[in-house]
């Protein structure tokens, strides 16, 4: 915050150098229509070239540009799905100049403007790297949250759900993992402002990370991305790695997601209301004989256990979801070109578990105004409030799911619903308040010189609270934990662009800029136990209460230079370099430099190119970016502690004064094509990513006294793969049409070198040269189905310690499928499927159960052999030779070993199927109305070797981790929603 006066000073200086609105101005009004249909085009961007003047067309396709300096001007019109249209006219002072523009279709959108990964605004044709774009106007299924909006939208963008808990976030990976020790969540920007991308802290009472009691919560992680209302989003740009993210510097190696929210248009207010009503329903898992692993009985349940805990009841419900959204956008046709967009959303979503509920409220205000002729201000603010109630779950001895799964061998020693229900006599709540506000000043003193200054602030306040009241079955005297966390990010960003026309065929855009990101996380927690009696306590009512505090600030700041050379508007070469400093770097490190170079070639603009073939752009990029170490990694530390009332110190980390960021170099080559009159579009990319100076948690020698692993820049790892996306318009009649599409994404990671460090386990995975990073390492059973002793000798893919490396824990192959069927009367039916394969997952829930002698469905065949007198019988060791090799390892409790519980996590899911019906005719006085019915994740196929579970149920700190470990959770439910959207 100490730098804030500097930014304010800059803004004031800028205001001084801006000049007032020109005296000699006129207006430009007109209509934008589609050339083929003559239908008005809504939301088209209409701008005056070389100025800040611009608006979006309204619902009737009309626009009005005010205060346009008199004289010859170029009007540019761009809309999604159309080619750029330019119009030259002479603006007369104090007059309204009428015009009309017709747009012709374009699939590649080579003249659309992108900003992510570029220094300023850049046209798609100039960009040498792939940019995935998600345009809300083209999304058929109304997304429930941002995770869902991103899921299965682009090759290389992998969004994995992590459990079925209310509020659960998704793990997002762009081209796999770049780091084995640092977060692999991409960084997120909203309207140019850096916002929190790491998952919220898990509600994990009591409060001490280092304590194994810290599993008493619901054991999942909420994602800050889901604070954003998807209905507010206009479009999203995703750059997947260092080839494109160089200008974001030290923290961008895992890619960047930039969200652009909606802005007002021109003219009268455009009101929009939307409601979604639906149910979430858990799809079957477990086995036929033990469906849902006892959470729901076979056949019809007698009722809900939490309401009436009787035999035959169900712990899971069909959960009702409701959502209401309203927005208004428009503009005031005055001298300032004021535009606004206001929205509000209210959601109330029950979860399928008894105590699960999510209540959300969010509101947004986006405003744009021309302060001066050459100064434009965009200011966006959103506030979101989320209240979550959860059911204790996961690997939680006092949780519902674990105890239901384990039945009579659970921590209540009974499968009796009444006894298990006593565990729900607790509250587990999370409240999150989020405010994101910030603005961008665009200052264009000259047509060839523009400046953009952005300042933003993102603050989230989280409260985690867990009350196990006096009389609670597993803590009779009561426990209360309350944790308050404040996360904040302050962004200051400047970019200046100079456009130079060196010759009629050669142009250049030189950019210079800088950025400062200050992240803070302040956390206090209070813990109390032993209350005097029943009632609703506060922590200080307890006989024993404790406090805990942590504060963490990380500052990253840097500057960059970039130049784009443009030849004949079809050859483009970009070079740039960014220099970064970071508070987590070692003292001796200084600034880090990240260069980049990229090129693109619009070959279809060559005279020799047959127009009938279509548009083709070739591209290539090479860039570097990084990932910073943790705030304390450079310093040799001691950990303050207590011992029976006295203060003490224990050794912390040995420290590494030379520590710096890990550096990721990424190269990519590709092409974008729209062929056969735009009936086929193709995007193909090959990428190779190499992380050097990789930050590995190097284990210390225990006998040297420091137990914590120390991050060090050693070794390297790589990722290689391809991304293909193809769409074909199979039928394109007036009344109906059929579009088919598919994507292919591959990713093969490899640890190349550990810099002399010995192979190590980290976070549930194994890191050893020659194998994928965070590999699934365990014991293979070569003869699982043979009636024989287990053959567990590793004969191939063996680690240096003789374990078997099953493979990576992140998918190596993702296949996407999509279909859109356009029917008469504007009805459409669309569907999207996704297959993920090649990865392995550890079934921790089965291991935990079997190693505790829980009667587990995977041993249904073995139990009559082992316990011929029934389950109360003692284990007949003499019968073991009748078991298969796998049964001998799993069903004889003393033989169980977590290392044998690795399974393939291949799956296919029907991510959504949506029927969209225009119903404007049925509602009076609306300009449009759409009814859509969507079923998400309703159908799925899971590799039968996984046997019981769904691979998208890992929970815990899954957003940030690389390992996949099934815990005592539930899979994400299917959601069926009926959505009505009306626009006035």
């Amino acid at each position, binding site marked *: 915050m100490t730098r804030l006066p500097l930014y304010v000073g800059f803004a004031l200086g800028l205001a001084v150098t801006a000049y007032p609105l020109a005296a000699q101005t006129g207006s430009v009004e007109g209509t934008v229509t589609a050339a083929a249909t003559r239908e008005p085009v809504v939301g088209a961007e209409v701008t005056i070239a070389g100025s800040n003047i611009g608006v979006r067309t309204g619902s009737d396709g009309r626009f009005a540009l005010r205060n346009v300096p008199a004289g010859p001007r170029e009007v540019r019109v761009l809309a999604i799905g159309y080619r750029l249209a330019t119009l030259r006219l002479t603006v007369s002072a104090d007059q309204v100049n009428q015009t009309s523009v017709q747009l012709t279709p374009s699939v590649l959108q080579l003249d659309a403007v992108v900003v992510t990964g570029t220094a300023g605004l850049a046209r798609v044709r100039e960009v040498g790297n792939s940019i995935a774009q998600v345009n809300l106007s083209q999304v058929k299924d109304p997304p429930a949250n941002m995770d869902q909006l991103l899921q299965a939208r682009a090759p290389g963008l992998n969004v994995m759900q992590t459990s079925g808990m209310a509020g659960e976030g998704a793990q997002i990976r762009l081209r796999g993992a770049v780091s084995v020790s640092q977060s692999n969540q991409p960084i997120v920007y909203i309207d140019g402002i850096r916002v929190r991308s790491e998952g919220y802290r898990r509600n994990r009472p009591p409060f001490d990370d280092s304590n194994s009691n810290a599993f008493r919560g619901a054991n999942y992680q909420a994602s800050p991305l889901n604070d954003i209302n998807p209905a507010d989003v206009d479009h999203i740009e995703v750059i997947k790695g260092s080839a494109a993210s160089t200008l974001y510097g030290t923290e961008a190696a895992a890619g960047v997601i930039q969200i652009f929210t909606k802005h007002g248009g021109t003219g009268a207010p455009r009101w929009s209301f939307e409601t979604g009503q639906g149910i979430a329903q858990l799809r079957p898992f477990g086995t036929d004989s033990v469906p849902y692993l006892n959470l729901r009985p076979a056949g019809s349940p007698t009722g809900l256990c939490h309401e009436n805990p009787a035999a035959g009841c169900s712990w899971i419900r069909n959960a009702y979801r409701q959502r209401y959204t309203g927005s208004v956008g428009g503009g005031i046709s005055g001298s300032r070109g004021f535009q606004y967009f206001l929205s509000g959303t209210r959601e109330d979503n029950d979860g399928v578990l008894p105590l699960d509920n999510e209540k959300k409220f969010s509101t947004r205000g986006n405003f744009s105004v021309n302060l001066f002729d050459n100064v434009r201000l965009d200011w966006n603010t959103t506030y979101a409030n989320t209240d979550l109630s959860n059911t204790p779950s996961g690997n939680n001895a006092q949780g519902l799911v674990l105890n239901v799964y384990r039945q009579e061998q659970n921590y209540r020693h009974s499968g009796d619903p009444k006894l298990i229900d006593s565990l729900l006599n607790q509250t587990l709540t999370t409240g999150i308040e989020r405010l994101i506000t910030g603005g961008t000043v665009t200052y264009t003193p000259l047509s060839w010189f523009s400046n953009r200054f952005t300042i933003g602030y993102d603050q989230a306040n989280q409260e985690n609270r867990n009350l196990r009241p006096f009389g609670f079955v597993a803590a009779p005297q009561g426990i209360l934990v309350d944790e308050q966390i404040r996360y904040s990010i302050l962004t200051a960003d400047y970019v200046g662009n100079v456009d130079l026309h060196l010759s009629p065929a050669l142009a250049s855009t030189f950019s210079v800029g800088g950025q400062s990101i200050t992240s803070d996380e302040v956390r206090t927690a209070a813990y109390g136990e032993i209350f005097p009696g029943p009632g609703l306590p506060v922590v200080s009512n307890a006989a024993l209460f404790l406090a805990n505090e942590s504060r963490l600030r990380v500052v990253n700041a840097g500057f960059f230079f970039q130049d784009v050379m443009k030849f004949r508007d079809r050859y483009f070469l970009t070079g740039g370099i960014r220099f970064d400093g970071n508070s987590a770097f070692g003292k001796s490190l200084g600034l880090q430099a990240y260069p980049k170079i990229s090129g693109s070639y619009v070959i279809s603009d060559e005279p020799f190119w047959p127009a009938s073939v279509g548009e083709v752009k070739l591209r290539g990029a090479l860039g570097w970016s990084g990932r910073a170490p943790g705030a304390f990694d450079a310093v040799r530390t001691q950990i303050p502690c207590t011992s029976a009332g006295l203060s003490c110190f224990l050794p912390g980390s040995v420290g590494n004064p030379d520590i710096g960021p890990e550096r990721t170099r990424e190269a990519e080559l590709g092409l974008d094509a729209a062929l056969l009159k735009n009936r086929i579009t193709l995007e193909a990319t090959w990428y190779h990513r190499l992380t050097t100076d990789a930050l590995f948690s190097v284990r210390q020698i225990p006998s040297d006294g420091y137990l914590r692993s120390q991050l060090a820049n050693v070794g390297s790892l790589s990722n290689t793969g391809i991304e293909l996306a193809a769409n074909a318009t199979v039928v394109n009649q007036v009344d109906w049409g059929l579009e088919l599409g598919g994507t292919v994404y591959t990713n093969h990671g490899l640890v190349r070198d550990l810099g002399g460090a010995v192979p190590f386990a980290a976070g549930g995975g194994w890191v050893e040269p020659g194998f994928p990073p965070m590999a699934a390492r365990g014991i293979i059973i070569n003869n699982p189905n043979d009636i024989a002793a287990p053959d567990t000798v590793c004969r191939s893919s063996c680690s240096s310690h003789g374990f078997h490396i099953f493979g990576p824990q992140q998918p190596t192959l993702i296949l996407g499928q999509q279909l859109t069927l356009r029917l008469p009367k504007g009805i459409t039916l669309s569907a999207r499927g996704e297959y993920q394969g090649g990865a392995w997952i550890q079934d921790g829930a089965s291991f935990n159960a079997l190693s505790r002698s*829980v009667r587990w469905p995977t041993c249904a065949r073995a139990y009559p052999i082992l316990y011929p007198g029934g389950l109360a019988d003692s284990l007949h060791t003499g019968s073991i030779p009748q078991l298969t090799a796998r049964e001998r390892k799993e069903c004889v409790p003393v033989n169980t070993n977590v290392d044998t519980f690795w399974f393939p996590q291949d799956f296919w899911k029907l991510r959504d199927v949506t029927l969209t019906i225009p119903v404007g005719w049925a509602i009076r006085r609306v300009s449009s109305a759409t009814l859509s019915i969507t079923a998400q994740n309703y159908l799925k196929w899971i590799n039968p070797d996984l046997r019981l579970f769904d691979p998208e149920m890992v929970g815990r700190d899954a957003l940030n981790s690389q390992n996949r470990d099934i815990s005592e959770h539930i899979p994400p439910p299917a959601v069926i929603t009926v959505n009505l959207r009306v626009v006035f």
Partner: protein
Amino acid sequence: MRTSLTAVALLLTACDTSVTNPGLTPDGTLDKPEAWPAIVVGARRALADAIGSASATGGQLLYWSAAVTFEINPAGSTGSFGIPTDVQAGILNDATSSADWASSNQARFVPEDAVRRFKRVMPDTLFGKSLLVGQAYLYAGFANRTLGESFCQSVIPLQNPDGSLSPGSLGSHTLYFLRADTAFTNALAVFTASGKTDTQTTNFIRAARAGRASVRADLASWGLGPWSDATADAALVPDTSKFLLPYAAASPDQYNYLYWARANQSFRAHTEWGTFYEGYYRTTKDARAKWDSTGMSGDAAVAKFGGSVPFWPEAKYATTAAPVRLSSGWEMRLIEAEAALTGGNAAAAVDSMNRRRANLSLPLYDRTVSLDSAWTLLKTERAVELWLETRRLGDLRRWITHNVPGAYIDGTYRGSSTDFLHATPIETMTAPAARALCFAVGRNERETNPNVP
């Protein structure tokens, strides 16, 4: 362009990325005198964590060595707060031992590093008589004793001339006893030089003397010293003297781990059902081996017993803050008894044992028993006196290795939950399969230390 340059200049000015975050303490801060007491308390905390606290860095030396030596039986959980199946089977391999190895080595490192730091930053005149230095030596002694009595081998880093450490190599576990002997000797010297005679200093002196007596008994057992050295120290420790390692109810990470694993905070992971102590306490009501009958079962089925077993937890540690005894005068009497037995004097040995039994109003042993029987009595008395104090594994190792006369009481006295209580064990330390007599050097040491294959 001027605006651009101004903006960049402003941003560069704003590029001060230096941040000092609170929380963790830079190591150099501990050189200041105000930090010295906390360094010594850290040594105590590290030892408590190694022997068994609920802290994440805590080991389970007490818990798992008790499980291997049948001081407790498993009652359910094998994961959190539970007894892994290999430990239930008496196996303490390098993978299982890693956490214990790490925390035990930190318990040794912290006081030894404190001594090195004090030597560097304290005035020489203070170093030789500082109670803080004395305590650091004291905890270094107990930490080394714990390592020697628990682990199969030693790895001790080498100190370079500049004070830094180089990775050590595998050596005999008895090196820890020698190191402990030196530490206790230094502690005695410093405490004595302090010139203080208050109760606290007197207790420190007795603790150091008792600690040295115990490691000298260890050394004598391994043929590395005379028993007379042990008894000379033991004789100077009064019967009721004791030195305790505290735990605390103030926060969960300082809880006594063994107690917390049986505190029914969902976990009921160990029981006295089926142990020698079940029958012993039933018969004698000897308060040293007290356990509770709860009417409950353990928290999960136990494979080796074919189902759930009664949850009859030990009652020696009845609270989260229950301390663990590191040394006592009563142990000294048993050292004197063992020394007498090695000298062939059964009657003198029984006399020493009977001092404690008389104190507890227990029936006295017959001082005319044979030497073999006297050894059996000694083994039983040490089992009961030092029950659940992380000492049994070391005792069994030195006795079994050296074929000391007399029988052992350690074993399981019930085979299943429906079995009756046997008079002799149906499973012992050596049959049907030999159980571990020490923790292996941790796999984490083998995987990180180039000198340890």
